[in-house]
């Protein structure tokens, strides 16, 4: 399937004569398909962003996925550069084994620290010793500055780094981009610490390929949120902000982003348990919904597992009187914008719930199909 998708992406961007348009191809590979895709493409650069457990019930265990990545890297050309997230210990463990060029990226700002490890932290065990890492700094989930107390394995110093980070809630963030290819202050419209990692991954990948710093900065600053990643939608004068939520660490970040706004918020949380969402929804109990208690005016729950979500919020201490269950996503959206009454409605859907909601909004002429983006 993944090979077909990669081949189709090539065909779609080719001329009638069968030559690919453009000079650089960017391929997103499903975590489990990485070995097959990289063997077929022989990439100049391999970018490893992070590894969360939202795919756990498809592949069993995170270690199994990491094992496939390790075997994929062993088959890489020695000239291929591996760009990887130094703040993710599992990704780092895979990336640092590459004998060729390595470009670790990460955040260098203790002010981004959460203080303590979240319940959402997944891959925080030393690969050599199996015991938990000790964290000096936690950015979110298992991302941070870590060290094994037994063997001393520690986070590598990032080659491409973000320092002096200013987080501006839903408006995105700004930081100093540091690299051997130059330094610059950049602003991104993408909110949340996880998006700083995404921006760093893109910057590290392009800078090490020789693309000039000013072109990289322009691309970062002009990139607008798309497809449910902090996408803003206006319906009849009312604003909704779509924030995709697909794993505990990401969900926590989305909740913190939402709560940085003024006053009490109104949220629509839509949880599906289809294959693309992960069929196991027990991860909802690793999200720190407790931070919503007393800070939301109303929460509408929807999706195939709406009842599970409502129950989770009850045990998180959210006032049951503030909860409303609406199975139908369109009706849930309407109830949400009505309750928000002029202030923005935060929509937090899992992946397929977001596709369904976008389909509803598209029928109403509010958003374009995602294939038009």
């Amino acid at each position, binding site marked *: 399937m993944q090979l077909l998708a990669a081949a189709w992406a090539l065909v779609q961007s080719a001329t009638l004569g069968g030559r690919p348009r453009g000079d650089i191809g960017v391929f997103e590979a499903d975590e489990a398909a990485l070995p097959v895709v990289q063997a077929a493409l022989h990439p100049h650069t391999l970018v490893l962003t992070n590894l969360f*457990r939202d795919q*756990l*019930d498809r592949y*069993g*265990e*995170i*270690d199994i996925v990491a094992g496939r990545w390790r075997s994929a890297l062993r088959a890489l050309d020695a000239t291929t550069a591996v760009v990887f997230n130094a703040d993710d210990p599992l990704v780092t463990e895979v990336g640092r084994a590459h004998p060729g060029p390595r470009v670790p990226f990460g955040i260098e700002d203790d002010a981004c620290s959460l203080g303590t490890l979240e*319940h959402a932290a997944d891959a925080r*065990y030393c690969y050599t010793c*199996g*015991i*938990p890492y000790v964290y000096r700094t936690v950015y979110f989930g298992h991302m941070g500055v870590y060290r094994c107390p037994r063997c001393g394995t520690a986070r590598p110093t990032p080659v491409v780094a973000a320092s002096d980070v200013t987080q501006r809630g839903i408006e995105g963030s700004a930081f100093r981009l540091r690299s051997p290819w130059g330094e610059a202050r950049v602003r991104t419209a993408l909110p949340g610490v996880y998006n700083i990692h995404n921006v760093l991954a893109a910057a590290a990948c392009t800078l090490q390929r020789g693309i000039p710093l000013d072109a990289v900065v322009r691309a970062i600053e002009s990139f607008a949120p798309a497809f449910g990643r902090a996408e803003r939608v206006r319906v009849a004068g009312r604003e909704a902000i779509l924030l995709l939520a697909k794993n505990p660490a990401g969900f926590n970040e989305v909740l913190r982003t939402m709560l940085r706004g003024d006053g009490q918020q109104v949220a629509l949380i839509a949880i599906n*348990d289809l294959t693309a969402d992960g*069929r*196991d*929804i*027990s*991860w*909802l*109990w*690793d999200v720190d919904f407790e931070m919503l208690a007393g800070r939301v005016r109303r929460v509408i729950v929807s999706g*195939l*597992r*709406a*009842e*599970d979500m*409502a*129950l*989770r919020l*009850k*045990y998180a201490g959210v006032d*049951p009187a503030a909860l409303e269950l609406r199975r139908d996503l369109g009706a849930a959206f309407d109830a949400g914008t009505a309750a928000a009454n002029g202030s923005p409605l935060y929509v937090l859907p899992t992946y397929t719930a977001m596709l369904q909601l976008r389909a509803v909004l598209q029928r109403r002429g509010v958003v374009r199909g995602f294939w038009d983006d």
Partner: protein
Amino acid sequence: MDLRLCHLYPDLLNLYGDRGNLLTLAHRAEWRGIGVRIEERRLGDPVRAGDHDLYFIGGGEDRQQRLAAEDLRAVKGPALHEAAGAGAVVLAVCGGYQLLGHYYRPSDGEDLVGVGLLDLTTEHPGPRARRLIGNIVIRSPHLDGATLVGFENHGGRTRLGPRASALGQVVAGFGNNGEDRTEGAVSGTVYGTYLHGPLLPKNPRLADHLITMALRRRHGPVDLAPLDDGMETRAHDAAVVRSGAR
């Protein structure tokens, strides 16, 4: 009245929203005016029989399970046997459940010797065998035939010996081994199961059953006041429908 809970290996065995089980036990006791204390015991920490009314062990990946197995047997095992013999409740889910048995035999590598609180063994049939993954519904004779709902995700196949009874019979899903329709195991006040989801929030009857047993040890027979379980029941029933069992 107070309830003393002990979370074993919270940093190693915590894979599937396991803290939801402790949240549920704690809230359901507190909502009835019962004081709750939760303590954690990690690798190397001793436990003392008599200190706690209920011990909880969650699930983990292979590496962490191996570390916990050695510690469970060598450091905490004798005290846990003594505690369980004196009526303390032990609840173990998934990987923790496997460790309560006699051994876990991986597809390669050495056996993990279990703590032997439950008469059962677990074997992994090899890397080519399919994992048992999906929504699961069981019917439990320990709860007057009530249904329990959850999600299972395990490679190991568990078989019960004569001194353990199943927690329930599989209505939908795989259960202990995908063959004999049993799920989980019970022996006295020791409970093990593959159901996570997590287990207790959507199965409030089981949660209250465990709280009642745990309180009995120091406070004698207790009648728990009823709670409004409307949301719990709706989530339970929705999970039954989602599993295809109805």
